[in-house]
Each structure stands twice: as structure tokens, then as C-alpha cells.
């Protein structure tokens, strides 16, 4: 480890421009990747949080007895999809209907023959973490419960909402993917430039009997360490960007209630990002160097045309 660190610091000391340039560019790239990832994962959480307020109306057939209603409730609860199943009697439903409609059409009030139009129902809300795209599946299952007439949850809205959330997620992945590819090129270019500038040094190591592994390891370590340093800097930058963003929502758009929903990465996510970044750096460095110093490759270049 000590010799790897010595190699890294030597490399930094003798190629400060390349190393600093690579660190800055990588930090920038990682900051964009992390911020986009953070933004889209927060957006998804916000959308899911909004979506979890959607309730499902389960309309029952007419003239069901109290035992049958209780049995349906039990079956709905046993499905394990809902956090709350609330029974609305035909009378309560009609009262709500009349109280709302009478504001617009006053003659509705007291028209008792309309009572039969509104059926009794269950109002059920999904368990936390429930997925919007599952609504249709759940609805189909609920419709098979004996005594259930119809299920309504604003199907079209939920489906559009679900597509929107999915699209947001996919766009996030696509942008991150493109930027990750870009960062691979940056790491590769840096390590390759350092290697090309140090081919003489590699040659001397070969002459002294160093194996390919001995020569490659310090460069792979260097790639991993630069990438890790860039990832740490990028996390700090992303945190700063998130703080600025939250301040904006608090000061300008408090009415949206979003300020509490934008969160930074958790400890496991941070560790995963750091490990992933180091791995990417090491892997790209390996790709750059593993063909460079087979001994024979260098020899054949060196010996061409000389006698």
C-alpha cells in the first residue's frame, strides 16, 4: 500500500496538470451524475408520495346485509394492499353527494329518490410504498371479491401519472448512463496520458524484471484513487447544490410543500457510490494498461527497423 501511495504522489508531483485537470473534469462529471440521480430519485419519491394519497372506491352491490359487508371488508383487508378500508353507507354517500351537489343545483336537496342512485362502498387507501402501476392489478383482484359491483380510482389519471413517473425515472437513467460513459473516457484518457508519458519508466521496470502485474497495479490504484477523490468532491458539491435547491423551495415555493421531500443520499447510497466510482476508475485504468506493457509489445515497437 505504501509503495502504491508513493507511486500515486509521484505521479501527481510530476504530472500536476494532467492529474488536476482529470480530477476537476471528473468531479464535474460526477457532480452532474450524482445531482441528476439525486433529483430524479427525489422526484420519484415526491410523485410516489403524492400518488399514495389516491384512494380506491369499491362500490358494493345493492341490498347487502351487515354480515356480507363485514365479510367483504375482511376479504379486502386480507388482500394486504390497503392501509385503511373505510365503509361508506348508502346514506352517507348520498348525504355527501347531496351536500356537494346542492351548492350548484339546490333543487337536488331533499330529492330522496336519488338515494338509490348512490351505492354503498368502501374507500381504501394503499399501503405506504404501494406502486401506482399496481393499481390496475389490485383493482382487477378486488373486482373478483363477491359482493363488489365496481371499482373506481380515477383509472386514466393514475395510469398517466404512473407513465409520467416511469418516464422521469428512465430519463434520469439515460442521462446518467451517457455521463457515466463520458466519465469513463475521462478516466481512460487521463491514465493513458500518464502511461504514455511514463513509457520509459515502464520500460525500466520491465528491464529490471517487473511482471505485468507489478507494473499495472500502481496505475490501476491511481485510476481508482483519482476516481474516488472525484466522487468525494462530487458528493460535497451535490450536497451543496441540494442545500441551495431546498433554500429555493423554502423561500420561493413553500406552498408546494417540497422542501422536506428533497433528501440527500443515505449512508448506504454514499458508500455504494464511492465504491462504484473507485471500481469504475480501476476498471478503466486496467483497460488502458493491460495491453500496454506485455514486454513483447513494447519490444516490437522499440526494435522496428533498428539493427
Amino acid at each position, binding site marked *: 500500500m505504501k*509503495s502504491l501511495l508513493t507511486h500515486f504522489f*509521484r505521479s501527481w*508531483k*510530476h504530472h500536476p496538470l494532467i492529474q488536476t485537470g482529470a480530477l476537476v473534469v471528473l468531479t464535474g462529471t460526477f457532480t452532474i451524475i450524482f445531482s441528476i440521480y439525486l433529483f430524479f430519485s427525489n422526484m420519484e419519491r415526491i410523485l410516489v408520495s403524492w400518488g399514495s394519497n389516491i384512494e380506491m372506491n369499491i362500490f358494493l352491490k345493492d341490498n347487502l346485509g351487515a354480515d356480507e359487508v363485514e365479510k367483504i371488508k375482511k376479504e379486502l383487508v386480507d388482500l394486504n394492499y390497503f392501509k385503511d378500508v373505510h365503509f361508506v353507507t348508502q346514506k352517507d354517500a348520498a348525504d355527501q353527494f347531496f351536500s356537494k351537489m346542492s351548492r350548484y343545483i339546490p333543487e337536488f336537496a331533499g330529492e330522496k329518490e336519488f338515494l338509490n342512485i348512490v351505492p354503498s362502498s368502501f374507500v381504501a387507501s394503499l399501503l405506504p410504498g404501494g406502486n401506482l402501476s399496481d393499481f390496475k392489478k389490485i383493482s382487477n383482484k378486488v373486482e373478483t371479491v363477491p359482493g363488489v359491483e365496481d371499482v373506481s380510482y380515477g383509472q386514466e389519471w393514475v395510469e398517466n401519472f404512473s407513465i409520467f413517473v416511469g418516464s422521469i425515472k428512465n430519463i434520469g437513467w439515460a442521462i446518467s448512463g451517457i455521463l457515466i460513459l463520458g466519465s469513463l473516457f475521462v478516466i481512460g484518457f487521463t491514465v493513458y496520458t500518464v502511461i504514455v508519458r511514463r513509457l*520509459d*519508466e515502464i*520500460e*525500466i*521496470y*520491465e*528491464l*529490471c*524484471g*517487473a*511482471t*505485468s502485474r*507489478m507494473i499495472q497495479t500502481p496505475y490501476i490504484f491511481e485510476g481508482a484513487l483519482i476516481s474516488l477523490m472525484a466522487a468525494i468532491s462530487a458528493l460535497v458539491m451535490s450536497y451543496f447544490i441540494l442545500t441551495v435547491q431546498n433554500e429555493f423551495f423554502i423561500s420561493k415555493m413553500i406552498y408546494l410543500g417540497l422542501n422536506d421531500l428533497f433528501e440527500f443520499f443515505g449512508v448506504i447510497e454514499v458508500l455504494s457510490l464511492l465504491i462504484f466510482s473507485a471500481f469504475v476508475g480501476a476498471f478503466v485504468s486496467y483497460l488502458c494498461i493491460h495491453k500496454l506493457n*506485455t*514486454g*513483447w509489445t513494447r*519490444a*516490437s515497437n*522499440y*526494435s*522496428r*527497423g*533498428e*539493427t
Partner: protein
Amino acid sequence: MIHFHHVYKTYAGPIHALKNVNIDIEKGDFVFITGPSGAGKTTLFKLLSAYDKPTSGKIQVANYRLDEISSKEVPFFRRKIGMVFQDFKLLKDYTLLENVELPLKILGLKSSISKNRVLEILDLVGLKDRHDYFPEQISGGEKQRVAIARALIHQPEILIADEPTGNLDPKLSNEIMDLFERINKQGTTLFVATHDHEIVKRKDKKHVIIKDGMLVEA
């Protein structure tokens, strides 16, 4: 120790760099090889150090068949030999001590153990006091002495030197040759390419001449 048997080396063109070269050097020999530029000396050294393979023929050095050696074996073969070049091939970012220590580090020796050995050999080449200098801070002759120290630190059976005095003035060249002689007396086989016929005459060692890729005198 070093055996070339009907060795040919042909490059694209075709350029016949070596033609039917036969050499036998035994343990403890000190052999000079001379010849004009383009005669094939460098090619011969490349084959000797496993930098290249012959087109045909058999090469055996320190019990390794270099015409058949695999790329994985090359590093282990090179640990058996020491090499000195005209351009010194020193690591400019490393101190003299670190440069000389390099082969021992590659062999896996700890610094605490290798340091004394490095200082001993730097003492042999007269540079112990400057062990913490960088190559840029010393003269050409001193650089070559560092390169020789590095080539000898792992106690190789063979030391091959390609124009080791090519960049040095006559006084420094003599110093280097005296050093080689001392090393040879300790049992190391030496194979030295040079343009300097004066040195060859004065040292009175085995002498091989190469011309147009062929050995013309031995």
C-alpha cells in the same frame, strides 16, 4: 552461460540484421563485441535481453531458451541478468538509492533489508555519499556508475552492457571499464558492446567483431 547457435534475425523489408551467428560464452568470461554502426550489435543485445526473438536458431542464456521463451517468463529471466545502456535508463524522479534499489523491490525485498545492500554497492561505485541525490544532479559518468550498481544489486550471473561508455569522456570510460574488470573478477560474466577499440586493446579480453550481421572474427 550464453550460447547462440545458427541465429538469424530478419526484419520486414527484408533486412537481414543477423546471419548465422554462433557464440559461446562461458561462466566468468569477459567478452567485448565491436563493429560499425548498423552491423547488428543492438539486435544481438535485444535478443540477449529477451527484447526480441530470433527468426531462426537457438539462443540459451542463463539456462533460459530465449528463442522459445514465453512473455510470462521474460521478467523472471531478466532477474537473472543485469543490463547497462548507453543512455543509462535511470528513473529521474527516484533518488540514486531508489534507482539502485529497484531490482530488489521487484524481487520483494523489504526496504529495511535492501537499504544496506544498496549503500554497499553505491560505496563500490563511489557514490555512497550521494545516495539521496537525483540523477539530474550528477554527471554522466556517475549516472553510468549508478546504472551499473542497479544492474549488479541483485547479483546477476551475467552483466550485458550496450555501449556503456558511449556518452562518456576517455577518463570516465576507463573508470567504468576498471569497474567492470573488478566485477568480472568477482565471478560475473560480462558481455560488453563498444565502439572504443582503444579500451578493447588495453583490456586484452576476449573480442568478437560483428559486421553486416555476421561474426567476422572471434
